[in-house]
C-alpha cells in the first residue's frame, strides 16, 4: 500500500518535471524512472488488469478490500476454490472467477474446494470460467465444463460458456474470440459429438482459419514417424557395429510450465 501511495507522488514529480522548461530541467534532479511503478500506475488508471492466483476466502476478501481502497477492481481470481463462500461479494466487486472443476484435497488450502463452486458463483452473478494448469486436463477442458452440468445442475449452454465466452470476457478478448460470430477470429473446433459428452472427440482444430489438427491425418503421421524412427535406429545400430561411439539419447519433451513457474 505504501508503495502505491508513494507512486502517486512519483507521478506528480514527473508531471512537475515535464512541465519545466529545458533550462529549469537542467537545474533540478530528474525523477527516478521505475518500471515496476509504471505497471502499478497502469492498474490504477484501469489500463492493466489484475489476475490473482487465489484459494481461500480470507485472502480473496482481503484483496478486494485493498483494491476498493484504491478505487480499483480485481479483474479475475484464478483457481479461486473458495469463491463460492464469497460469491455475492465477488459479484458486487465485479471480479470474475476462473476455477478448477473438481480438484481438491491436494493441499490444506483446498480442503473446502467443491465441484459446485462454479455454479454457485454463477448463481451470484459472477462471470465464471473453468481453467486448469495441468497440461493433461487442459486438453479435455470440454469435459471439465460438462462437470458443471453434473455438479450444480447448470444448463449445457451455460456450462459451455465456462470454457468459451466467459474466459474470453475475463481476458477482454471477447470481441475477437469466445463465440461464433461474423467478424470474430476463425478459431474453431469440429467435434464428433456434443463436446460436453465424454464420447466427443475433436476432429479438426482451426486457428485463424488454418487447420492445425486433423484427426484423420494422425494415423499417417504416426506411421511416417515410425518409419523415420526405425531408420534412425538402423543407422545407430550400424554405427555401433562399425565401432562408432553414440551420443546419449535426448528426448525433446518440453518443460512444463505452471502458475508458479518463474523462468529466465
Amino acid at each position: 500500500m505504501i508503495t502505491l501511495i508513494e507512486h502517486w507522488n512519483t507521478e506528480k514529480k514527473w508531471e512537475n518535471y515535464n512541465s519545466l522548461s529545458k533550462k529549469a530541467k537542467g537545474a533540478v534532479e530528474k525523477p527516478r524512472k521505475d518500471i515496476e511503478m509504471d505497471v502499478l500506475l497502469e492498474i490504477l488508471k484501469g489500463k492493466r488488469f489484475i489476475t490473482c492466483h487465489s484459494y481461500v476466502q480470507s485472502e480473496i476478501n482481503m484483496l478486494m478490500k485493498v483494491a476498493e481502497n484504491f478505487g480499483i477492481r480485481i479483474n479475475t481470481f484464478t483457481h479461486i476454490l473458495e469463491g463460492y463462500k464469497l460469491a455475492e461479494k465477488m459479484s458486487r466487486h465485479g471480479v470474475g472467477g476462473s476455477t478448477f472443476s473438481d480438484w481438491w484435497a491436494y493441499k490444506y488450502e483446498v480442503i473446502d474446494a467443491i465441484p459446485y463452486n462454479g455454479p454457485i458463483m454463477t448463481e451470484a452473478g459472477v462471470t465464471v470460467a473453468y481453467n486448469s494448469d495441468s497440461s493433461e486436463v487442459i486438453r479435455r477442458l470440454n469435459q471439465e465444463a460438462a462437470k458443471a452440468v453434473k455438479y450444480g445442475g447448470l444448463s449445457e449452454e451455460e456450462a459451455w460458456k465456462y470454457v468459451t465466452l466467459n474466459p474470453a470476457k475475463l481476458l477482454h478478448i471477447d470481441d475477437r474470440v469466445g463465440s461464433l460470430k461474423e467478424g470474430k477470429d476463425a478459431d474453431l473446433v469440429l467435434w464428433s459429438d456434443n463436446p460436453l459428452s465424454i464420447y466427443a472427440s475433436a476432429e479438426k482444430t482451426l486457428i485463424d482459419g488454418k487447420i492445425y489438427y486433423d484427426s484423420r491425418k494422425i494415423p499417417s503421421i504416426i506411421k511416417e514417424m515410425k518409419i523415420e524412427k526405425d531408420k534412425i535406429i538402423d543407422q545407430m545400430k550400424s554405427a555401433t557395429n562399425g565401432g562408432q561411439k553414440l551420443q546419449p539419447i535426448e528426448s525433446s519433451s518440453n518443460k512444463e510450465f505452471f502458475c508458479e513457474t518463474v523462468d529466465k
Partner: protein
Amino acid sequence: MKKTIILFFISQLLIIGQQTPGNGQFESMLIENAIIHIGDGSIIKRGYVGFHDGKINYVGEIKPKNNYDKSINTNGAHLYPGLIALNSTLGLAEIDAVRATRDYDEIGPFLPHISSSIAYNAESKVVESMRMNGVLITQTTPRGGVISGKSSIMQLDAWNWEDALIFKNVGIHLNWPSPYTYKRVSSGKRTIEKNKNYNKKVKEIKDFFKSSKSYLPNPKPINLEYEAMRNLFNGNEIVFLHANSSKQIQDGIIFLSSLRINKIVLVGGIYSYKQIDLLSKNKIPVVLKHPHNLPSFIDEDPKLRFRNAKKLIDSGILVSIDVSGSMERMNSRNLPFYAGSFAAYGVEKENALSMITLNAAKIIGINKNYGSIKVGKSATFFISKGDALDMRSNIVDYAFIDGRKISLESHQTKLWKRYLQKVRNSKKELKVK
C-alpha cells in the same frame, strides 16, 4: 423441553451426518422401470431388480409376482453395479501435501507382511465423495518399495476398516524395476539411459522370491516376510505385477511364471499391447492405467492411452482400470469417465462398464458376490438419471451397498447446499430492499 430440543438436534445431525453408514436391509425392495446395465456386457432395456437381506433376488423384464415391502419407480433411469476402483489408495491419505495424513507407504523394500486394510480411514472425506458418482468398492493398495504390501477390498460405507472389508489381503504388490533411467538435463529435456542397476534389482527380487519359496513349514523363529509369501505359492493370493514398459512386463511375467505362480495380474501396463501374446498365453488380466494421462514420448500417438483398452480387449484379455497417478484419490470419482473415455475410443459402451464392474470383480476374485446385477449376488448398485459413464448425465439418485441404502451426502454437498442457500437468501434480501 430443552432436552427434547437437544435430542431433536442430535437426531437431525445423525440423519444428515454424511458418513453415517446405512442401516442393514430390513425390508425387501423392488426397483421398477430401470434400464438395467448388468455389468457383463448385456443390458435390460426396461426391467425390475428386487432384493432382500442384502442379496438380489429378482432381475427381469416383467414385474415379479411376489410382494416387496418397498419399491422405487425410477421412470427409466439407469441402474449399474457398484463401480470398483482398483489399485487405489483411497482411505490411506487425506490431504496430499500434509504428510501426517498420508499412510500408504511403509519403510523398507520387501514388505509382503504389510496389510493396508488396517490403515484404511472409513471416515475419510475423500472416500465419501466417491459414492455420489457410483464408486462403491475399492482395492486399498499400499505404495512404495519393491513389494509394497498386501491390498484388500473394501466397500465404501462403513464405520471402520473392519466393517468395510469385503476381502482381506487379496494379494501382494510387486513394483518391477525400470530398465531405463530418465534424467532431466538443464535444457528441461529428458535423457534416457539404460538402468545400470536393473540386473541387480531384478536379482534382489528373484532372491527374495526364491528364499520365500524354499521357506519351510513351521520354522523357528518365524520370518514374517517369508510367511506372508506362502499364499502366493499355494495359489491363494495374487501377485499384482506393477509394470508399464514392454521389457518390464516380459521380464516380470517370465520370472513369476517360472516359479509356477499362476495368479498374476498386471497393473499399469501402458505398453502391454506389445506383449499381448505373452499375456494371452498366460491368461493374465490387465488393470490398465486410466486414459487421462499425457503420452510418455513425443513421437507417441497422442491418443494412445485412450486406444489402449480396445487393443487388449479385442485380444480377449480381461481388462479393468488402474486409478493410480497424479491426485489419484480425489480423482478416483472420475472412474466412470475413465471407462467412458475408453468407450469414446473404440470399446463398446457396455464392455467399458464391465471393465469397472464385472471384470474388476473377476480380477480380484469377488465376482461370486459382486460386479454384476444377478440373482444371488450382493445388492450393491446405484441408480443414475442418465448414462453414468458420461459426466453430463452421471447424476446418482440412489446407491445401495449390500442392500443398505447409503447416504450420497458428503462434506462437499453439505458446503454446496449451505452456500447456495446463502447466495439465494442474499438475492431475496436484495429484492426486499
